Structures are given as structure tokens and as C-alpha cells.
């Protein structure tokens, strides 16, 4: 496939956003256009992934035709494309949900363009092979996400967006410090080139700083303990379609970052990074799980749960074996689908409440009138808790298995306890909303958000639980590619 096509997953939504800006007065057209754009981009991404997977060769686009370390390279290796497909899939579903959503946000003139640029930022950050370019894409992501949350119907939206923006600026500063340190030390921004040069000379005095800063930056992006503080506040306040995207795929940027750090950039520091990831991951599993148990709001419960689930993925990366990395990728992919669907379902319930809120004080017992949503939510809960026949089981089984192979029993045991907590909080939420008595006098709106998007996502959740082979094979192949950092380097800068 022509390497030029690699720009399309970025370019299609970006042009789509630009056109959508012109459609500010024709909201319906704008919405349909946005969905069409994202779906087109998704199809292209899937084709790219398929091509790269089948040919076993990464696609590399030297943008502007400038040879590798001098221009900006876009690198479509398996990891990047898996992440892109995952993100664009969930973002498409988020847009689909927004189309049938009662939030007033979806009626604002620039909601959809911002949704698309959110997708551009995320996609670009995965695809780029240039560490400064990654920073730029991440900025696009941050600004879009901030605005989308700030205009939320939730009364805390603006405050939460402010916090997020502030902390993201902090992350950006860390990232920039890391980029600067690396550039000063190695004179290049190209990740492949950097990796090769760091491999040759790891004695640069600024290298340790760069590792630390980059680590902190990605820990913020990936809501890893103790850099997670922005996450539950920010995600909960976001409008449902945005929350579904933020809490599922956007946080995976951190995961992606750690994978690149440990398999490409800092091979020498990898053991130290991995040790930190395991500790942070376990802490996140417990903190997120406990927070999800203790919170007062179904959407907030799911936001906390994201932190917990990311913890599992971090531990997988921390083990660093080929199988555990594959497990982390499968886990990341599956979690995105489950979490997005669950959030949309919580949003659907909230949209039926008298005040638009997913707080248990409002939604308790509301589910009795929404049995189908209940079935979906139950399936999603099983997915989060890792119970068959959902894809969550595949994630957990793979991760446990890789932990046993890595002979890392203490984290494994703690993960087991964490899984039990997952069961507690998902079942509690289900029980509250679907089984308990509604608060007396509570009103129930006759119409709410459309459940098409979460239904599709959950069908996928079940399909990937029953027939997991393609995803697992893909993850294993990705992991095999990652095992040899030289593959990436030669693909981008040649020998």
C-alpha cells in the first residue's frame, strides 16, 4: 500500500472538522457529516492495519518527502495502527451516540468539529514517529477535550475542564522538558533515530532526566497513580459521548507511551521503568477499584474503574514479556470497547432522570423501566469484571497467564483481589439502578438517549469474547514486532 495513505487517518477527520466548521448553521448535516467522516477514516485505518499485518512490514511516510531524521515521519507499525483502529472505532461510536443524545452539548455549533479534532489529536499521537510532533498532536487532543468538557451540561464541567487543562499543561511541560533534554543530548527528534542513538550512547547526562520527565508526562496522560488526580473529576463531568471516548481510548495514549518507552526508546532503563509501572499499576488497581466502590455516581464509578483497569494494563507492560505485552494490548483494546459502552449506558439512564445526572440518589431504581439497557449493562459489568463470555475474560485470562509465565506472583495475587473488587463495584451499581426501589417521587422522562451505539459495542464485546483469535493473534504479532526495537528503527531510518 502506498505509504502516503498513512496520512489519511489524520487528514480525513481534520478536513472533516474544517468542513464541519462551515456547517455551523446546519446542525443535522454537520452531525451526519461528522459521523460519515469518522467512519470513512475508520475504514481506511482498518485497511491500513490489515495491509500492514498481512505484509508484515510497517508503513512509513516521510512527510513532505524529507528523509528520515530531518522531516517528520509517520510510522504505521502494528502497535500504532492497532491503537488507531481502536480509537477511531470508539470515537465513531461516540459520535453515533451523540447523534441520538439529549445533551444540549450536541446541539452547540462546534461540538462536532471539536469531537473530530479530538480524534485527530489522538490518531496523530499514535501514528507519528517524531517525539515533538507527538507533543503537538497531544496538544490538539487536550484543547479539544478541555472545551468539550467545559461546555458539558454537568455543572462541574467547567471547573473540571479547568483542572484538566491545568494538569495537562503540566504534562505538556514535562513532555517538552523531556523532548528538549533528548534533543540537546542527541540532536534529533525522530523516535527511531533517537532510539538508535541512545542505544549507542546512553551516557548523556540529560538522558535520565528525559526518562523521568517522559515517564511523568505519560503517567499523567494515562491516569497512572499518583498522576491520576485529574481523571475521575474530569471524566465524570464530561458529556456522555465525550466521557465515553475520554475514559476509554484517550487515556490509552499513556499506555502507548509506555510501550514505546520500554520497547523502543529506553531499552537500558526498561527494567527500572517496568518496576515503577508494576507498583503504579497495582496502586491504580486498588485506588481505582476502591474509588469506584465508594463513589456516589454511576458515571464517576466508571471513571474510577478506568483507573483501575489501566492499572492492570500497566502491570502487563511492567512484566514486559512478549505474552504480557500482548495481554496488555488485548486488555487495552477490550477495555476501550467495554468502558465506552458502559458509559453510554450510564448516560442513557441519566438521560431519563428528572435532573440529568447519574448520581445514585437520582438514578436508583430507574433501571426498572429500562430492562434492555439493564441486560446490556449487565453484560458490560461482566466484561469489566472479566467474566466469560465477554472479551474482558480474554483480557484477564491472558494477563493472568502471562503473569504466571513471568513468575510474578505477588502482583498476580493483588490483581486477583483487585478483580474481586471490580465485581463488587459493578454489581453494586447494577443492583442500585436496576433492582432497588426508586427514590419516592422521582420522575422518569419518557425519552432518552438512543442505545444503538452501546448495543453495537457490546455485540463486539461478546463477539471478541467468543472468537478472540484474530485480536489475540494481532496482539501477539504486535508484541513480537515490539520485541525487536531494530525493526522499528530500520523501518524508519534504514540501516
Amino acid at each position, binding site marked *: 500500500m502506498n505509504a*502516503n495513505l498513512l496520512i489519511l487517518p489524520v*487528514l480525513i477527520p*481534520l*478536513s472533516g*472538522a*474544517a*468542513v464541519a*466548521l462551515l456547517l455551523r448553521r446546519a446542525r443535522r448535516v454537520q452531525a451526519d457529516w461528522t459521523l460519515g467522516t469518522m467512519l470513512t477514516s475508520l475504514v481506511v485505518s482498518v485497511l491500513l492495519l490489515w495491509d500492514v499485518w498481512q505484509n508484515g512490514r510497517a508503513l512509513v511516510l516521510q*512527510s*513532505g*518527502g*524529507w528523509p528520515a531524521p*530531518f*522531516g*517528520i515521519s509517520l510510522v504505521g507499525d502494528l502497535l500504532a495502527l492497532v491503537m488507531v483502529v481502536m480509537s477511531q472505532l470508539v470515537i465513531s461510536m461516540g459520535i453515533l451516540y451523540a447523534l441520538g443524545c439529549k445533551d444540549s452539548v450536541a446541539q452547540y455549533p*462546534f461540538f462536532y468539529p*471539536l469531537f473530530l479534532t479530538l480524534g*485527530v489529536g489522538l490518531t496523530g499521537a499514535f501514528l507519528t514517529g517524531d517525539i515533538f510532533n507527538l507533543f*503537538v*498532536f497531544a*496538544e490538539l487532543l487536550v*484543547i479539544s477535550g478541555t472545551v468539550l468538557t*467545559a*461546555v458539558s*451540561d454537568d455543572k462541574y464541567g*467547567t*471547573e473540571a475542564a479547568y*483542572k484538566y487543562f491545568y494538569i495537562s499543561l*503540566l504534562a505538556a511541560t514535562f513532555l517538552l*522538558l523531556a523532548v528538549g533534554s533528548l534533543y*540537546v543530548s542527541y*540532536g534529533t*527528534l525522530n523516535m527511531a533515530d533517537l532510539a538508535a542513538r541512545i542505544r549507542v550512547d546512553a551516557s548523556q*547526562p540529560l538522558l*535520565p*532526566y528525559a526518562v*523521568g520527565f517522559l*515517564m511523568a508526562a505519560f503517567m*499523567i496522560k494515562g491516569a497512572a497513580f*499518583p498522576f491520576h*488526580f485529574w481523571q475521575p*473529576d474530569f471524566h465524570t463531568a464530561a458529556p456522555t459521548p465525550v466521557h465515553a471516548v475520554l475514559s476509554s481510548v484517550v487515556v490509552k495514549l499513556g499506555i502507548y507511551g509506555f510501550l514505546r518507552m520500554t520497547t523502543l526508546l529506553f531499552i537500558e532503563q526498561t527494567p*527500572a521503568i517496568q518496576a*515503577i509501572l508494576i507498583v503504579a499499576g497495582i496502586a491504580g488497581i486498588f485506588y481505582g477499584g*476502591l*474509588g469506584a*466502590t*465508594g*463513589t456516589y455516581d454511576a458515571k464517576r464509578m466508571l471513571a474510577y474503574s478506568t483507573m483501575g483497569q489501566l492499572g492492570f494494563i500497566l502491570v502487563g507492560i511492567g512484566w514486559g514479556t512478549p505474552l504480557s505485552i500482548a495481554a496488555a494490548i488485548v486488555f487495552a483494546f477490550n477495555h476501550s470497547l467495554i468502558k465506552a459502552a458502559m458509559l453510554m449506558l450510564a448516560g442513557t439512564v441519566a438521560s431519563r432522570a428528572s435532573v440529568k445526572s447519574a448520581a445514585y440518589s437520582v438514578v436508583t431504581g430507574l433501571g426498572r423501566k429500562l430492562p434492555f439497557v439493564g441486560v446490556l449493562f449487565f453484560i458490560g459489568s461482566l466484561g469489566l469484571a472479566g*467474566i*466469560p463470555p465477554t472479551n474482558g475474560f480474554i483480557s484477564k485470562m491472558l494477563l493472568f497467564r502471562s503473569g*504466571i509465565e513471568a513468575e510474578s506472583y505477588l502482583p498476580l495475587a493483588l490483581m*486477583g483481589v483487585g478483580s474481586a473488587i471490580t465485581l463488587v463495584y459493578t*454489581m453494586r451499581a447494577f443492583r442500585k439502578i*436496576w*433492582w*432497588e*426501589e426508586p427514590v419516592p417521587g422521582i420522575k422518569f422522562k419518557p425519552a432518552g438517549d438512543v442505545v444503538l451505539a452501546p448495543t453495537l459495542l457490546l455485540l463486539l464485546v461478546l463477539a471478541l469474547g467468543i472468537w478472540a*483469535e484474530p485480536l489475540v493473534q494481532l496482539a*501477539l504479532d504486535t508484541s513480537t514486532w515490539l520485541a525487536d526495537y531494530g525493526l522499528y528503527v530500520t523501518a524508519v531510518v534504514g540501516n
Partner: protein
Amino acid sequence: MSETTLFWPILIVFIGALFALIIGLSPLRQRLSIPLFATLLAIFSFSAFLLDISTWPSLNDGRALVWQINWLPSLGLTLSLYYDSLSALFVFLVSGIGTLVLIYAGQYLKGDENAWRFLHYLLLFMGSMIGVVMAGDIITLFIFWEGTSITSYLLIAYKSKYEEAREGAFKALFITGGGGIAMLAGLLIVAHVAGGTDFVTILQSGEALRNSNLYPVMLALVAFGAFTKSAQFPAHIWLPDAMSAPTPASAYLHSATMVKAGIYLLERLNPAMGSTEAWFWLLTLVGGITMLTGAYLGLKQNDLKALLAYSTISQLGVFVMLIGQEVEAAFKALIIGILAHALYKSALFMVVGIVDHETGTRNVTRLGGLRRAMPVSFVLATIGALSMAGLPPLFGFLAKETLLAAAVHPTFSPLESYLLASAIVVAGALLLAQSGMLVYETFLGQAKDKSVHAHEAPWPMLLAPAIPALLSLTVSLPNARTVEPYLASAAANAFGTAVKVSLDLWTGINTPLILSVVAITLGSLLFGQRAQVRAWQNRIPATVSFNRVYESALRLIDAGAYWATRLQGGRLRLYLAIMLLSMVGLVLRFGATLPLVNLLANLTWPTPTADGELAILRIFSLVFIVVTALASVLLERDFAAILAMGASGLGIVALMVLEPAPDVALVQVVVDILAMVILVLALARLPRPQRRKAQELTLKLKSFRPGLLWDGFVALSVGALVTAVTLTALVSRPRESLVTPYFEENAKPLAGATDIVGAIIVDFRALDTLIEISVFGMAGVGMYMLLRYAARKYGDVGAQVEELPAPIQRLRSRGIGGAKTSSFVHALAYFSLPLALVVAITHIMYGHDQPGDGFTSGVIVSLAVGFWYVVFGYYETQRRLPWLKYDAQMVSVGLLLVVLSGLLAAFINGTFLSPLNFGAMLALPLPKGFYLSTAFLFEVAISLTVVGSVTLMLNTLGHPGQTQEEAKARLQEIARLEEENEKQAKG
């Protein structure tokens, strides 16, 4: 069934579940009576039953049928089934009792609108349970295992409007689900050691498993899973609470089948993992304690279902204990016990359900004397109870005999035998007393509560318990012996080698018989004295209640949850402090200080160089930057602080000019000014009271408080770290950038630019620029969204001011904040915009060769527009510059222009965003130094986007107010101030 059709029993039952679902969701449900519906569903389970008994005989030689499909070939995982006599025995129980329970449930739930849901769950459970006992590998086993947990959860909580149903369901799920996680881990370790997940491999790797140093771990985990499922002490606590399920579910899941899943698993793994010291002690102790606990607590109960639940626990304990043994006799007892127990316990449960259903209570203190009203139930209950009590000629007697025979097996030491046998005798006596109580208190004697009315159940409802009850009797029939080989084969599968099973009731006068007599005597005594015994039991407080452990586990989770959510209290300052310190910790962790220490040790101060004057200027700029930055923090008035910040930025400009880095300096200066303008406009937009409040708050924060020390510490540590980075960078910098020489060499020949920075922006790193302008454009869009729409949450409905009241109409042409501006300033403004446009155009045209580019040109135009807003006010500016309303359109066109020119380049040159000189291609006569190229288009696009974005910001910030009230209030305030001024001028 053959190997290829092994999945049929499972499939049939799941098809039945699907059928139940379809009927339940369709209007057909109204036409179909529930008993008929349930009977139709029973056909599915009965088919599975027939398939099972038709295949069982072929397995008597101890062989196993295996079926598998490659499920996850990349991991070597299969979905497989393994079907031997042991599986067949369990399938026999699951599908057989299942058929009866379905028929029974149809009667039990007559008149329940949602009965189809119950039946659907029941079939789902049945399919999963058959799956568990037929699973051929650990993954399949686990999948179905969890399936039973989940369906059990749904069945217990069927009457979900009752708190106890929800609680009981959750408790069961939490305990068995937690056990499931442990079991999965344990089984994965087993598979890891055995080198395969399927039972064929695992059963062949017994040696490796037992000798592995992971053996204790896997044993503990797997046993934990099995114990929780099979309600072993101390995890037994969920089973009594699960009795809040409708009785058909209790009879089926919580006595006959699901609770035996753990037993099945242990039996299945016994040949591979058993026969070790650890196995023996773990199973014997846990099973023994469970047996005694269940029997003891059962006698205490008043609720008939609770009584049966505890006796089930006791029986399950017996089974676990038996699996722990290494003797053939134990497995004979085990298989007979399982069969006997399933028969009598399901019968008893169903009878209790009938009693409950027909009288409305199952409390023994209210029942009594029902034998006349419910004669058939009475007979069935008596048969079941006699079997449970272990009296001849029932199956239960045989079970107890064989059990005692196993306990006094000669391989045990006398002490072991003595302990085991006496425990069994005690438990047996307790169970006998309970059986007596069950029958006596319910059916005999006098009715204790006159308000309880009873009548016999319809015959199909009685049929269901009648069959297992009568089967309990058949053991005494002569042709009962024909099933001996089947049972022997099942026992052999669990034991590992052949087991001889005989169903002879009379084996002569031997130790087991004597012990049996002892147990019966003791039990009869207990039954006779039950009032005293129960009173005595109730006096002993339940000192060790494991419910408290469960509750405190949940409380621990809740306490953790409390602290987790407390830490997440929304305090940004705390968040930042933790994050910043963690960041410092991270950087230190990677040993960043070491190189710094080395560097500092070798640090020499730079000697002053020749360019002394410049050095002085540099030092001056640095001091200026620091002072103004400090001032921006310390100054109290917001406006002054903003100005100070702007000055600090200008200081950086000076440094850049001295570097010399003219491009950076130019961008910095225009951006700095633009930022000031926007901030000042934003301030002007804020209502005065709000500004005042914010200032007061800032002042309070600045005053000294203990927290300030902590904040200072955080700030200092981060500051020190960043200083260290800078210093290290400075000292270790001799390295030349690797990419700069390339840029220097190729900027002119390849990109056609003498200004390298220009070439970097629009050529070498064009993609960065494209995304950067998207960010910039979206910032404008974002500000528009925030001010126009986010404000709606706070009561601002977003209505635009259309008509203003006449007295303040004249104020429309005032500058921002109502300032009156002189005509001199007006003239300046008139002049500045065209000038800015000319400068902008030159920047765009010659950006490739000189400092300045599309970005600076855009900002310069925007600044001029901003000036207009300040001078003329919103309405006047909008009137004079109508193109300003195409703000978002400019952003859009700018972005599309880049995309199009990039695509054009892709089609002509083959690469997206590659440089292309259209002027040269078309040989256009263009002025010298100006090239019509992609770079030029890019510069235009950047400029457009920037102007569009800033216009968006200015349009929203410069707007006097979103609501009629706000605008009116603002203008009225201005009018008032004006009057005051006039008065002062006069006075």
C-alpha cells in the same frame, strides 16, 4: 453420542434457553400457560438426559470421549469436552433433576408474569452446569463455572425487589466469584506446570504437578475455588443466604447440582493432584469441620429451607473429606453419597417448597399437623427424611454405611480412624435429629398456628419430588445391582484406579453397622431431647461467625473506598503537590542527580568574552525578566499583574534578539502582545464584583499561613530540578544538532528558502505547523464555545442583545468598557489596520527569505483588529468590518487550504506536503523574490487560520454581554460613571 457429537447435551439445553427467551419476549407468552411452557422446556433437558444415559454404558471400561475445537490456536487453547463416567454421573443428575425441577417450577410459579425469565435463567444454568462437568480443559471449565455463578446470582435475586434476595445474591456471587478468580489463577498454574490446559494432559502430568514447587500454591488456589463453590467452611456462609432464591432454584442449584461443582473439580483433579500429605490434610480437615458445622447449625434452624441448606453443607463436607482420602472405599462412598444426597435432598427441597407454597410459611414454629391436609407430601417428605437420616432400606443408609466403612479402613492409624468415625457418627446423629424434626414438626403433631391453612398441591407438582424420593427406595430392589458398574466406573475416574462398588445393603454385622446403630441411637436421643438441645444451642452465642468476616471484608473495602474518594476531593492544590513531588521522585529515581553532581564538580565559571556590551544587555534582560515575573506574582491588582507578565515576555524577546534569533523574537513579541490584549479584554468582560472577589481571594492566599511553607517546598523542589536540567544542558552542550546542518544545506536548494526557520515551519516540519494551526484555530473555537455556551450553566441563556433602550443607545459607539476615545486615537486606528495588512502581506510573500511568516502576519492583523475593538467597541467594529463575522469560516478555509495544497503536492510530487513551486512550473511572471509555491499557500493558510481564531476570541470577548440584562447593566454602569465624572468636572 460419539466424540463428534459430544456437545449436544449442552447445545440442546442452550437452545432451550434461547427458546424460553424468544417465547418470553414474544406475545406468545400470553397464550402459553406457565406449567405448559415449563413442561415444553423440560423436553430439552430430558433430551440431554436421554443422550447421557444412552452413552453412559459405553464408558464403563473407564474410557473418556474427547471433543475439541481450536479456539485460540495462537495460544494453544482449545474449547474441549471430556466425557467419562464421572461426567456422565453428573450430567445424569443435572439433566435428570433439572427436568423435574422445570416441571415443578412451572407449577410453583403459576401466575407469575415474569416466570419465563426464571425458566430462562434456569436453562442457562443447566447448560453451564453440564458444561462444567463435561469440560475438557481448564478454560472451558472456567467459562462454564462462571456461567453457573452468574446464573445463580440472577436466580437468587429473582425476586429482586426484596433486599434479602439482593443481599443473598451478592454474597453468593462475591464469595464464589472471588473463589473463581483464585481458581482461574490456580488452574492456569496447573496448566503452566503440566504444559497443557486440557485434562488429558493434566491427568497425565500428575507426577510433575505433585513435585512442582508451585504445588502448594496451585493446590491452595484451586481448593479455594472449589471450597467457595461447594460451601465449605468457612466460605459456607453464602449458602444459607442463597435460600432467598425461589425454592425450585434452591432445590436445583443449591443442593443438587451447583454446589457439587467444587466436588466435581476436586474429583476430576484427584488423580493428578491428590494422594499427597497436603491434599489429605487440607481436604480432610476442611471437609470434616464443614460436616460438623453444617450438622450442628442445621439443628438450630426454624426455617425448613435453612435447615436443609445446613444439612447440605454438612453433606458437602463429607464429600470433600472423602476426596481427601487415598483409599478405594472412600471413592465408593463418595459416588454413592453423591447420588443418594442428590436424590433425597432435591425431593426434600421440593416438598418444603410445596409446603411453603401451599401454606405460605416454612417456619417450623408455625407449622404442624399437615399430614391430613397434605398426605402425599407427608409420605414423600418421610421417605426423603429417612434417607437423609441414613435409615435402611433407603439409599442414605447405604451411603452412611459405605462412609463409615471408609472411615474405619485399615490403612488409617487407629487414632485417625477413631477421630474420623466419631465425627461421622456425631454428624450422622445430628442429621438424623434434623430429619426427624423436619417431618415431625411439619406433618405430625398438632397445627401450631391456626391461621395457617393448607391443601395438597396439584399432582404434577408432587410428581417432581416423588420420582427422586421413590428412587431413593429402589436401592433395595434386586435389579438395582445393574447400575453398579456405572457407579464403579465413575468412582474409578475420580480415584484414578479401579474401584469396586456394590449396592448390597446387608454386608453382615461389622464395624460400620455397629457405628451406624450408635449414630441412630444417638440421633434418636437428640431428636427426643430436641427442645432442650435447641434451647442450649441458642444460649451459646455464635462467637465465631464467619459472616462477620465477610461483613468486615466488605467494610474494609468500604473504608478503603472512603479514603480513596476522600483523597480525590477536588482540591487542585493537593493534586498538584502530589503530582509534582512524584515527578521529582521519578526523575531522581532514574539517577538524574549523579551526572549533575559530576558536572557541578567540574563546573568553571565562563570567562567574560569580548562582546562585553552584549553581555551587559543580556544580564540586564535577565534581571528584567526575573523582576517582572516576580512582580506578576506579587502585584495585587490583576491588571498590573498582567502587564508585568507581558513585560517579562518582552524581556525574553530582548534575549532572543541578542542571541540572535530574529524569527523567534518576532513571534514572541507579537504573541506576547496578543496574549496581553486577550487577557485585558477578558478582564474587561468580567463583572466588577467578580473581579473584586477574585482579587480578595488572591490576597488571602498570599498572606502568610503554614500551608505556604509546604507550597514553597514543592515549588522549590520542582524549581531546583528544572534548574538542574538547565544547568546540565548548558554545561554538557557542545554537541551540535544533527539535523541543523541538513537544514542549512537544503533550505535553499530544496525548499527554496533562505530563511531556515521559514523552511522548517512550512517545509521540513510542515505537519507540525498544520497541527499547530489546528490547535490555534480550535482554541478560538473553544473560547467561543466556552463564553457562549458553557456560561449557560450559570444562568446565562445566551440570548443576544438586539435592541437597546434609547438612553443608552448612544453608548454603542464607545470603546471597550465604555471608554471615550479621542479622534486622535481613532485616526491611529484607521491608519493601523491597512498598515497591518501591508505588513502581513509582505510577511506572507517573503516569509521564506526573511524573518516573519504567516503566523506573525496573522497575529499582526489580529492586533490591529483588536485595537479597533478597544477603540470603537463591539457594535461599531462589527459594522465597519463586516468580514469579522466569518470567523470560524476563516479557520476552516485556512485548514482546508493546507490540506488541498498538500494533496496537490501529493498528486504531483508523490508525497503529501512536499514542496512545489507552481510559479516556476507554470513559468508565471512574478516579482523577484516572490514564489507562488506550496510554501506561499501554506503561509496564507496559517495567516487566515490565525486571523480567524483571534477574531473568534475577540468577537466573544469584545461582546458587551450575552444577555439583555447583562448588557443593560453594563451600559447603565458606564452611564452612571459618566455622570459622576461630569459632576466632578463641574464641581
